[in-house]
C-alpha cells in the first residue's frame, strides 16, 4: 500500500458489499416471496431490485428484503416500499422491467410511480 488513494479505492469497492449488514436504510423495499409470489415471478423482480439499487449507489439508504405472503395473491408479484414517516406504497403485478422506473423515480427521486401501484389497478 503506497498511498491513501489505494486504500480508499478498496474501501469504496467493498463498501457496497458489506453495507447489507449495517442494518436497515431509511427506505425498505419488501418483495412478497411466498409460493404465490414466486410462481408469479417474484424472484427476477427481487434480483432486479438488488442489482439496480446497487448500481444506483443507493445501498446506504435502501434495504431490499423479502417477506412471505402479503395476502393479495391475485396481484403478485407484490412489492411494498416503506419509508419512515411516509405512507406505505404497494406496487402490484410487478415485473423486472418495471423495476428501473421505481428505482429512478421513487427510491432516488422520492416520487412513487403511481401507475404501478395498487390504487391504480382495477380491484
Amino acid at each position, binding site marked *: 500500500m503506497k498511498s491513501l488513494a489505494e*486504500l480508499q479505492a478498496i474501501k469504496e469497492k467493498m463498501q457496497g458489499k458489506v453495507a447489507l449488514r449495517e442494518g436497515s436504510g431509511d427506505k425498505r423495499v419488501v418483495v412478497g*416471496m*411466498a409460493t404465490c409470489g414466486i410462481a408469479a415471478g417474484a424472484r427476477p423482480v427481487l434480483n432486479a431490485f438488488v442489482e439496480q439499487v446497487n448500481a444506483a449507489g443507493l445501498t446506504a439508504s435502501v434495504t431490499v428484503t423479502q*417477506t412471505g405472503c402479503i395476502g393479495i395473491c391475485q396481484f403478485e408479484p407484490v412489492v411494498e416500499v416503506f419509508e419512515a414517516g411516509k405512507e406505505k406504497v404497494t406496487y402490484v403485478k410487478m415485473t423486472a422491467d418495471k423495476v428501473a422506473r421505481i428505482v429512478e423515480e421513487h427510491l432516488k427521486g422520492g416520487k412513487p410511480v403511481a401507475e404501478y401501484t395498487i390504487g391504480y389497478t382495477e380491484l
Partner: protein
Amino acid sequence: MIRAHVLICGGTGCTSSGSNKIINAFNESIAAHDLKDEIKVVQTGCFGLCALGPVVIVHPDGTFYSRVEEGDVDEIVREHLLKGRVVDRLVYKDTGNYDEHHSHVALSDTVFYKTQNRVVLRNCGVINPESIDEYIAMDGYAALGKVLTEMTPDEVIQVILDSGLRGRGGGGFPTGRKWALTAPNKAPQKYVVCNADEGDPGAFMDRSVLEGDPHCLVEAMTIAGYAIGATQGYVYVRAEYPIAVARLQIAIDQAREYGLLGKNIFGSGFDFDLHIRLGAGAFVCGEETALMTSIEGNRGEPRPRPPYPAVKGLFGMPTVENNVETFANVPQIILRGAEWFASMGTERSKGTKVFALGGKIKNTGLVEIPMGTTLREIIDEIGGGIPNGKQFKAAQTGGPSGGCIPASLIDTPVDYDNLVAIGCMMGSGGLIVMDEDTCMVDMAKFFLEFTVDESCGKCTPCRVGTQRLLEMLNKITSGKGTLEDIDELEQLCYYIKENSLCGLGQTAPNPVLSTLKFFRDEYVAHVVDKKCPAGVCKDLLTYVIDAEKCIGCGMCAKQCPAEAIARTDYIAPGHKLASFAIDAEKCVKCGACVGTCKFKAISKQ
C-alpha cells in the same frame, strides 16, 4: 447479485458447538436451491451471546437465529432465504421484551445488544475476520493512513493521552503515558508488544477480538510503533487459542501483502513488522516482565521493576506493552477523536469495557458497555438475570487477582477507581456471577488453588505463602478451623501482598481478602458453628432423611454409591413400610439421593 448475507459465528464457542458443520450445510443447501448468486455465507467472529450458539444472523433484516442445528439449515434456506418467511421456532426469544406477536427479533433490537456500546467489538460478528478487504470497508487501516500521513508521533501520543484510555489488562495505567515514557528513550531498536496471554479462568475478551477482528490489532500495533519509534512488534498469544492464532497469522500475511506491514508503509518511510509468539499457557506470563522473558526464549519468570519496560524491556530495549483490548480502542480513537472517546465513561475511566459474563447468569457471553454502567444493569438487563429464580449473592471481577462485589453494592458504577475503592479490581474483564448456592470460602479456595498451581516459584512469599493460605482455607472448610485461623489468614494475605515480586503474588490473596471483608460471617460460621451456610463444603454437611415423610420406597438406597442408606425398624404413622436412614459414617455427601426422593424427605443440614 448478492441480496442477503448469512453470518455464522466462527468464534471458539460456536465452533465447539458445531458451527463449521452449519456453514457447510448452508453452502450445500444454498447451492441445491440455486441461490448461490444471491446469498453469501460469511464466517465471522464472536457475536457475544455464546450461551446460544451456534448463532446465525441473516441480513439485511438482521434476523437472529440461535442454537441452530445442522438439520435446521435446509428449513432456513427454503423458508427464509427463498420465500422470505422467518423460521419462528429458531429465532432468539429476547429475554425481557419478547412478545408473541413480534417475535422477529433482529439482533440489534435485543436487550442484550441494545444496552451495549460496541467500540472494541464493533466488527466482531459483522465482518469476515479473514478478509482484509471487509476490514478496510469498515474504515480499517484508515487510522493508520491518517497517522502516517498527517500526524507526528507526538501528536499521536497526545491524542491517546487526551482520550483518557487506560490499560484494559487490569492495571489501568494510562496508555498515553506509557507511550510517552517510551518514545523519548533512544535505542537502536524499540519494540511494541501485545499481551494476548489471557489467562484468567472464564475470561475471553481478547480471544474474541483476535478471532473476530484481528486486523484491528495489526493496525493499532503499527500505530503504536510509529508513535514510539519502534519498527518491530510481537504478539504473545497463548497456544490454547488455535483459531485466534490462525486468524491473526492470516491477518499479518494479508497486511504484508498489501504493504500495510513492512517497509515504507503508505510511502511515509515508516517500517513496521509483526510476529506472533506462542505462550505455553503459564498464567504468570500475563505479567509483563515474565511475558517478555518468555518471548526472549527463557523460562517465563518475572523480574523486579524498575527498570520498567519503557526503559529496558524486551531484549533490554525500550518496549511498550499493551493488552489486546487496549490496542483495539486505538484506531477508533485516532479516527473519531479523543473527545469522542472521552465522552464515554466516567470521570477517570473513559470509554467502554468488555466483560466476559459467566457463572450463574442467563446470557453467558461477551458484552461491551460504557465504563460506569452499574453491576445491576449488567446482571439484570444485559445478562438476563439469575436463572432458576435464585438470589444474586456476589460477582467476582478480575478472576484470581480480583475480588467480589456483594449484592449490597450492586448499584456501584463499574469503573477502575470504584472497584479499587471497594477492595476489588477491574481485572481483564472476567465477571463471574454467583447466586445464593455459592459458598464464598469455597470460592476463595477455588481461586487460591489456581494461583498455587500457577505461581512460578521465583519468590518465596508467593510460592510458599499461597500454599499456606490454601492449607488454612482447607482447614476452615473441613470444619477444623478456629477464629485465630481467620486472623492469621488475614495477616498472611497482607504479608504476601506486600512482599511478592510480581502482580501474580501481589494480587493472589485478593479473593480471600475481599470475601473476608464482605462475607466474614461465612468464615465464622465455618469455624464456630461448623456449618457451611450455602451448603457447599462437604465436610460440614450432613444429609438426613425425615422419617415422618419417608414412605419407605427405597429409591434413595438404590442410588447411593456408598451403600450408606438402609431401612430402619420405624414405620411412621400413616405409612405402610419402614422408613430409611442415612449412616453418616458411610455417607460420601454426593447428594445423589436428594434428587431421587419424590417426597422431599431428604435434606442437607
